[in-house]
Structures are given as C-alpha cells and as structure tokens.
C-alpha cells in the first residue's frame, strides 16, 4: 500500500498559486498609459515562409493594409519551399507593390529547417541594403490588425524599449485542440499584458517589431536554439533594454492535431530550458520584475508547480488504483451506489484544501473575464473547465517530457 500525499505539500502549492494570482491581480491596478505615436519611420517586415502557400497571401495582405502612411518593405524569405509559395509571393509582388509598399522576395535553395536561419537571411539583406528605422518579424501563418504596426511603434518610441509584441490568438478555432489553444492564448496574452506593466516581457513571438538599431547592437537571431523568439527577447533584456506588449489582436495558425501540438510544446519547453540556462544571470534583483518574479517564480517555480501538481494527481490516481486492487484481492467489490449524504458532502467540502481550490478557481474566473473583455474573444465556461481539468494537465505532461529530454540531452527537432 502506498502512503498518502502529505497535506503540507498540497498547502504549499495552493499558497504558491494564491501568491502568483494576487501578484497579477494587483498588477491589474497599476497605472498604465498607452503611448501615442509621434513619428513614423520606414519599416521592413521579414516574413520567413516555408511551404506557406495557404497563408502567405493573407499574411502579406495584412501588412499591406496597415494603417501606416510611411514606407513598408515586405521581405518574403522563401525558405526552400516545395509548394507554390514562390509563385504566390511573385503574384503578391505584382499585386501589392506601390508607392509606400514594396515586396522583396529572397529565395533560399536549401533550408536548415530552422526559422531563425530564414529570419537572419532576411535581416542580413535588410541591414545591408535598406535604410529602415524599424524591423518587424512576422510568421507567414500570422495575420495582423490594421493598427498593429502603429500601436507597437508607439511603444518603441519610449526610451529603452527595443522591441514590442502583440497578443496572439488562434486563427483556427474549430476542433478541441484549437479551442483549448484559444483559451490558452487568451490567458497567456492577458498574462503578458500584466507582465508588460511590470516590464517583464521577454518573448518575441510570431509578430514582433524591433528598432532596427537593436540588431546592429545585438546581432542576429540564434540559429542553435529551439526557441529563437525567447532567446532574442532574453538577449534584448540582458543588454539592458526593455520590451513592450500591446493588446492588439494578432491571428495565428495553431496546431490542429495532438501530434503537432505535442511536438511544438516539447520544442518550446526544451528551448525555454535551454535559454533560461543560457541567460540565468538575468535572475537578479537588478532586472526588476523579470529577474525577481517572472523568471524565477512564474517560469521556473510555475513549471515546478505544474509538474508537482501533476505528480500529486498521478500519485493519487496510483494510490487509489493500488487500494482498489488491494480491496479486490480481499474480496471487497466496488459499490456503485449514488447517494447524496448532506453530512458527508458538507464535511468533505469543509476540507480547507477543497475550499482553497474553489477560491482559486473563482479567482481565475476574474482573470478570464478580464482577458475575454480585453481581447474581445468568446470563451465559454465549458471550454474553460475543459482547459483547467484536461488541457492544462496535458501541457504539464509535455512540459515533463521536454524536461526529461533536456536533462538527458535528447535531441529535439525544430
């Protein structure tokens, strides 16, 4: 027979969860003024495109349609695509080239399979051939709103801010995995809004705008990491600069199948661990909320929190299973009787662990309501419950798998 999980471990986890929740809850009430865009500047959009025939046109069109009077270069890096990406890129050039928009197509005959390599190809071209003040990196399966560039640029005009990113939301939200990712992206985006308020943003995902001078100082994207977007943001932070986050909605294609989702998340977590190890010096009081809260507490302890919680649940299931088998061996059969006994029910609910978990759930609903309202995305309570009871734990399993692969130095594909 296995021993039961000690109560104090569960209490520590619950308290940790409350601490993080209240921290972010209070951050909600910190003063935050949206900056106004004072000056436009020439911008280059780098779009790495590998077999992007289905999404490229919509992506490029979203850039062309920006509410932005200054010049925009759109650099499509065709990363050895084997589909109609090049043909579509050429068509888009003919269609959209104008006085303020110019599409440049760069074609690589051989792909390294890493996005960073394709971005760097575009960056090298931009830095040696074009005179631009801003460089935006945009995934070929991502579509931005008309105000996206202006809103991000407004933040970049604040001193010390070198990069600015936006709130990603899945474009495809039909099946279960997509719907779960919608909840995840809405909550993650809201979390980043809050992180932005305490200068703790350190990720440059599918759409990020940088000041061009940043790449001159910091160099190109790291082609050896699995999460180049996290690495570049940590590098930006380690050079003493800051990143901003706008609540502009950016639509992106998310994995539709479990297999693809698993591969993506293992890559993300593996890359995250790689980069935290690389930039561990950022875990410092000098880095403000990033060094004292985000990296050590939210990211490292948050991961540990998830993993420990998953372990406890797994252990509890194993505990119940061994008890069940033990009872069967004693000749004690499970009794399938459903009776509502108010005394035992209320006594079970009086367990402080149960009460605190209920508090935590209600508290999380406040965040959900704020997040939904801010990004204007619909999430129903069923989706949220499924997210908490099912999807969140699947992510935690991916996290453990990535951690094990990282510890045992197993190769993870991009």
């Amino acid at each position, binding site marked *: 027979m296995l021993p039961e999980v000690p109560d104090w471990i569960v209490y520590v986890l619950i308290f940790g969860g409350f601490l993080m929740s*209240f*921290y972010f809850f*209070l951050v909600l009430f*910190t003063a935050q003024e949206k900056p106004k865009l004072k000056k436009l500047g020439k911008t280059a959009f780098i779009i790495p495109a590998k077999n992007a025939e289905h999404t490229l046109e919509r992506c490029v069109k979203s850039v062309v349609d920006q509410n932005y009077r200054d010049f925009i270069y759109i650099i499509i890096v065709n990363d050895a695509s084997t589909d109609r990406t090049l043909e579509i890129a050429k068509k888009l050039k003919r269609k959209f080239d104008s006085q303020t928009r110019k599409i440049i197509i760069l074609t690589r005959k051989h792909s390294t399979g890493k996005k960073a390599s394709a971005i760097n190809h575009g960056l090298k071209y931009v830095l040696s051939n074009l005179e631009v003040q801003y460089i935006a990196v945009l995934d070929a399966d991502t579509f931005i709103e008309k105000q996206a560039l202006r809103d991000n640029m407004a933040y970049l005009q604040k001193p010390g801010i070198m990069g600015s990113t936006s709130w990603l939301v899945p474009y495809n939200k039909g099946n279960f995995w997509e719907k779960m990712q919608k909840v995840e992206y809405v909550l993650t985006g809201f979390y980043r809004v809050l992180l932005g308020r305490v200068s703790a943003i350190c990720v440059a995902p599918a759409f990020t705008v940088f000041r061009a001078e940043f790449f001159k100082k910091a160099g190109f994207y790291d082609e050896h990491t699995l999460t180049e977007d996290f690495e570049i943001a940590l590098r930006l932070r380690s050079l003493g600069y800051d990143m901003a986050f706008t609540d502009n909605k950016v639509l992106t294609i998310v994995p539709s199948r479990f297999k693809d989702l698993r591969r993506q998340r293992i890559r993300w977590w593996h890359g995250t661990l790689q980069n935290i190890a690389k930039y561990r010096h950022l875990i410092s009081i000098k880095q403000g*909320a990033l060094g004292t809260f985000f990296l050590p507490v939210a990211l490292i302890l948050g991961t540990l929190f998830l993993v420990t919680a998953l372990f406890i649940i797994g252990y509890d299931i194993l505990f119940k299973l061994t008890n069940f088998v033990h009872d069967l061996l004693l*000749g*004690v059969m499970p009794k399938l009787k459903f009776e509502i006994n108010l005394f035992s029910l*209320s006594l079970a609910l*009086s367990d402080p662990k149960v009460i*605190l978990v209920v508090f935590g759930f209600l508290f999380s609903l406040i965040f959900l309501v704020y997040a939904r309202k801010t990004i204007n995305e619909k999430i129903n309570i069923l989706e949220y419950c499924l997210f908490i009871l099912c999807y969140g734990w699947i992510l935690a399993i991916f996290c453990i798998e990535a951690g094990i692969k990282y510890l045992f130095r197993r190769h993870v594909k991009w």
Partner: protein
Amino acid sequence: MVKHRHIYLLAVILATCVFVFGLLLGNYVASVKLKEFKKTEERFLVELLAFEAAHRVFSENICEFNVEDFFERKVELGRMLTNLEKRFGKEKPEIIAKKEIYELAEINLWNYLKEYKEKCGGNYSMVLFFYTNKKHDPKGSIDGCEDQGKILDQVVYEHNVLHKGMPVYVFSFDVNSKNSATKGIIKVYNITSVPTLVINDIVYGYSLKEKINSILENGTSTK
C-alpha cells in the same frame, strides 16, 4: 492605484489572508458538522435510555420494541463518525471522546439485540469487531484492522443489502478505548490482539470474507 514596490508585499498579505480565511472557513464548517453529530448522538442516547427505562424499570416486553430500527440508526451514526475521523483524524481527542460515547451506545444496543434474539427469536447474526487506530500498536497492525473493516463492510453489504443471507449486525470497538464498558467487554472475551472478531460469541482472529460467510452460514468455520 497600487505602486510597484508595494505589489510584492501586498500580494503576500492578500494571499495569506485568503489562505487563512479558507482554513478558518473550513474549520468552522467542520465544527458545525461536529456539533450536528453531537446532537444526533445525544438524541440517539436519549432514545436508548428511554428504551432502557421502559424495558428495565417498567418491565415492558422487549419483543414489542423495534430493536433492529435502533441498529439502523447506529449504522448511520457510525457513518457520520467515520466521516468525522476522515476529516479530523482518528487521534483527535474530541473524536475519541465522541467515539467512546458511541461505543457505550453500541454496547447497550448489542445487549438489547442479544436479548431480543433470545426472547423474540430475531433472525440475525451479531459480530463484535475489535480494532486499533494506533499506528504502532503492539496489539496488532492498523492496516490489518482496516482490511478487516473493509471485509466486514462487504459481508454486511452482501447480507443486509443484497440479502444473500441472514442480516448481520456489526459492533466495532477500539481496543484502546478508555471507557470501562468497552474495557469490560474486552476482558470478557479476553481480547489480546487485533483484529479480532467475535461472531455469535466465538472469538476469531483476522478472517477473510469466505471464512466469515462460512461461520455465519454454518455457525462455525469450515476452514
């Protein structure tokens, strides 16, 4: 608006407050349930005493009382007590005190059921179950007692709910109980180790379901 430098401190204070509130609320609800149990237990005791008065003092005929109904109520009380033990732990003094009162009621009821069976021909078996709740008790293992309890529950379920045999009434006693009545019954049956069962006045050690069923059906063990 909250200033950044105060956020950490405020978060700790608020998290602690909600945490403590959750603990206090849980304990408050549990204490309310404990009071509810106390009331139910007292009501049961009063009825038992009333029955005793009617039977012993005014010599009323025991066959006219529904003694088996008392047993059902004892089972309900036992369930409540088990839930309280799960919530507060088996070694909490308040729970031990409640259990001692419960055991006194059990002994009274056991006596009545015995008398009822003899005088009125009640068709049921009675089992006394002696166990320990102490982790390292020299009298026997707590795990063995828990297993024996589960086996008895299964036997009772099969007999009383599925009607696979005559009804079985189980009375459980903690061998470390401080009350003199329980001590007396332990002495009468010379209980020195646990788990021990007394089925129809014969003492048995740890017994599997088949053995108990056999004893109940044949009046003795076939194994």
